Structure formats: structure tokens, C-alpha cells
């Protein structure tokens, strides 16, 4: 009750009269601003920057923000298995917390690279993430030998790794992109590596229904850049002259990552793909056990 009372008092004091307050807003205008229905041009006087800010706050996800999927799925896998497993196995089934935190650290590095500019860097994150996810998978079954050290390296590796597999064909050298991400703000070209990464993810996932669905958000962003969903193919082929073929997606994730795969988010869906088949198809029929 207390805080509410204060706010009620505030509301009564809130200047709503346009004559006395140039920034007064109608309730309906507030709703439209919040819903992103007003572009900076359409926003009421004094609110153009607010409209711009709210649009930025709801911009398409960056790679960094989507870097932790493998970890979330590993958690799901562990919990699902634990539910189905007999009680005596259950204790071992959850990956120890510190691994989860290690993965969060990996994702954090990705997210800290700002503005989606440093896709090359975050793209490199995916493989370490995948490695850790795989090690979790292996560990869930029992032993925890090599896996216990796994979270360490990936957390610190991305920055240095960025220079590694970058030999792959097109696009700006990873180091350049990484610098841009770390620097003040990526200027206009910052958008390009991002779209390249998305294109790679899109093309990599195109072969499998799964990849396509998981990349839905990326696809929206691409469609916007390309000028429509049906333009995405051509747009990506232009952007990535040596574009990947969908078959890539069918390879087991342990295969050497070709130049295309080092980047973008073709990664998580592909490792997920393997996982899904393994876990879902076998316990599926017996799942009522739960």
C-alpha cells in the first residue's frame, strides 16, 4: 500500500495540462509510444528522442544476446533426463552449477561486445560454447574428467580466437570487427558483419526445418534488410559470394568448422539438431513414464 500511496500522490501532481506542460502526454499517446507505434517523426513534440530510444531498446537481437542457447538447452536436457531417470541416477544428472556459470561468462563476453558490430568475435564464441555444451552432454552420462576444465578456456578464448580461423574467405577480418566492437561505437559499416553473420546462419539452417525455425528472429532482421522475406535468398547470396550450402548443417558438430561455419549462429541449431534427434527420438515413445 505504501508505495502505491506515494504514486497516487504523484499522479495527482503530474502535470497533464498541455498549456502548462509542453511535455504532457495523453494516455493514448503513452500507449502508442510504448508499443513502438510512433516513429520519431510521429512522436509528439519533445518525444522524438524517446521514440528513437524505445525503438533501439526493442531492436532485433544481437548475436551476443543469443549466444547462450546451447547452455539453456543443456540445462533442459539435464532436467528432462533427471525427471525420467530412476532416483539413484538423478543426483548426477544436473550439470554442476559452475559449468552453467562458465557458460554465462561466455555469453557475457558476447553480450559485452556491443551493438552487434563484432559478429566475427561473437561468431567465434559459438564454437567454444558448443564445445562446452558437448562436454556437458558427455558429463551428464557420468564421468567429469575433461569437462570440468572446459568452462575456463572458452570464457577467455573468444578475443584471442577471433584471429584464428578467420582465414575463411569473405567478410572483414575478424580482428577488424572485434576492434570495432570494442571501440567507441561502430560507425555505419557495423551493420554489415552483423548481416553477414545472419546470412551465414540463415543459409546454414536453410536445409533443415529446425535451423530455419531457430533462426526465425535472425530471419526477420534479414528480411528487413533485404526488403522482404522473399528477397533474403538473393540478398544473402550477394552478400556472401561463396555462400554455404545447406548440407553443412547435416554434419556432426564435431567436424572441422569450415570457414562459413565459424561465424553466425548456424552453430547452435546444428549442435541442437544432433541433440534433438538423440534425446527426443529415443525417450519419446516411453515418455508417459513421467
Amino acid at each position, binding site marked *: 500500500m505504501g508505495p*502505491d500511496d506515494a504514486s497516487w500522490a504523484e499522479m495527482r501532481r503530474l502535470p497533464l495540462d498541455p498549456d502548462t506542460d509542453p511535455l504532457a502526454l495523453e494516455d493514448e499517446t503513452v500507449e502508442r509510444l510504448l508499443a513502438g507505434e510512433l516513429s520519431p517523426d510521429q512522436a509528439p513534440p519533445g518525444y522524438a528522442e524517446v521514440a528513437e530510444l524505445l525503438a533501439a531498446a526493442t531492436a532485433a537481437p544481437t548475436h551476443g544476446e543469443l549466444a*547462450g542457447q546451447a547452455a*539453456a538447452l543443456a540445462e*533442459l536436457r539435464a532436467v528432462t533426463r533427471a525427471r525420467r531417470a530412476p532416483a539413484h541416477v538423478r543426483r548426477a544428472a544436473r550439470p554442476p552449477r559452475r559449468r552453467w556459470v562458465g557458460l554465462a561468462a561466455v555469453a557475457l563476453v558476447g553480450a559485452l561486445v556491443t551493438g552487434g558490430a563484432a559478429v566475427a568475435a561473437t561468431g567465434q564464441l559459438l564454437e567454444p560454447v558448443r564445445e562446452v555444451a558437448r562436454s556437458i552432454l558427455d558429463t551428464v552420462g557420468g564421468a567429469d574428467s575433461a569437462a570440468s576444465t572446459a568452462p575456463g578456456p572458452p570464457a577467455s578464448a573468444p578475443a584471442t580466437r577471433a584471429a584464428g580461423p578467420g582465414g575463411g574467405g569473405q567478410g572483414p577480418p575478424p580482428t577488424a570487427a572485434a576492434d570495432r566492437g570494442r571501440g567507441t561505437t561502430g560507425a555505419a559499416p557495423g551493420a554489415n558483419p552483423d548481416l553477414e553473420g545472419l546470412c551465414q546462419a540463415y543459409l546454414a539452417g536453410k536445409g533443415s526445418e529446425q535451423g530455419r525455425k531457430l533462426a526465425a528472429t535472425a530471419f526477420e532482421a534479414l528480411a528487413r534488410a533485404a526488403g522482404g522475406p522473399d528477397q533474403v535468398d538473393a540478398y544473402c547470396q550477394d552478400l556472401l559470394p561463396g555462400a554455404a550450402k545447406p548440407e553443412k548443417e547435416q554434419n556432426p558438430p564435431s567436424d572441422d568448422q569450415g570457414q562459413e561455419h565459424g561465424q553466425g549462429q548456424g552453430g547452435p541449431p546444428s549442435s541442437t539438431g544432433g541433440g534433438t534427434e538423440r534425446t527426443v527420438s529415443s525417450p519419446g515413445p516411453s515418455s508417459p513414464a513421467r
Partner: protein
Amino acid sequence: MIGPEFPAVLSAAARGDEEAFGRLWHDLQPRVLRYFAVVSPAAAEDLASETWLGVVRGIERFRGTEPAFRAWVFTIARHEAVDWWRRAARRPTENLAVDGLMEQVAPDDPAAAAVEGFSTRAALAVVATLPADQAEAIVLRVVAGLEVNQVAEIMDRRPNTVRVLTHRGLRRLAERLGDDARIRRVV
């Protein structure tokens, strides 16, 4: 938004289907991260992970529509945030990450920033400078995409209070950003 497929996706995810869960995650994780970037930026990644852990554990029992699911996820997220605020209150020196964010609000080259517009992180950092309840109400409305009543329930406030908080928050943002824009024009 997942849309008409949501019920099927939800029940598949609840059975442990990773593709389905991946879709839910993909849809909500950026929003969850951005929520935490505003309400507890020093621990955003960890708290998002904890939130998904809560989702994984509870999804089997969840019943409801997509908007309700979204509100449920943010209910879990807020519990994580509240826990973290309590813990942080006992260790008051944990504000380093906020400083990191603030650097991005004031980039080295304001002209470039003006041309480029706001990056998402900078935008969230600006929202985070509002009084905490205004910032939270705005981020839940805008970024999480929740209705007033859902936000009210999550924040444990009345719907009218949420309206006032968002209104005041927007107004304050307009004041602040307007001043900033005027300064930029003068410089």
C-alpha cells in the same frame, strides 16, 4: 512472438523437445537479458541463466497462453532480480558493470552517436538511469511487451501506479534526452 503454434511449441518444450524449447528461448532470451540490463546490469547474464533454469524446472506445470507464458517468465525473472537486489544490498560495491554501461551512453564521438542513433545497450543504459520503479515499469512494458495488468502483477503494484510510473518515466526521458539533443546541436 511465436503465434498460433505456441500451444504445440509449449507442450513440446515441456516434454523436453529442444527445438521447441529453443524457439521459446530464442523469442524471450533477448528480452530477459534486456530487462536485467536495466534492473540489475551487473548480473544480467547470470540472472538470465537463473531465470531459464526456473523456466526449465517449471515449464512442465505451466498452463496458459503465450502472453501468459511471457508474463510467467518475467515473474521468474523479477524474483531473480529481487533476490539479487537483496544480496547486492549487502555488498554495496557491485556497481562496476553499471559504470561500464554508462561509458557507452556517452560515446567518444557524440556526432557519430547522433547519426547512428542509439545502440540497444546504450538505450537500456539510459532507461536504467531513471528511478528504479519507473525504469522497471518501462522495460516490462516496452521490452518484455507486457500489458499494464501483467506488469502490475509482476511488480506487485496497482495498474494505475504502473501507468503513472511509465508516464513519468517517459516524461523524464524526454526531458533528459531533449536537453542532451539541444546540447549536441549547440556544440
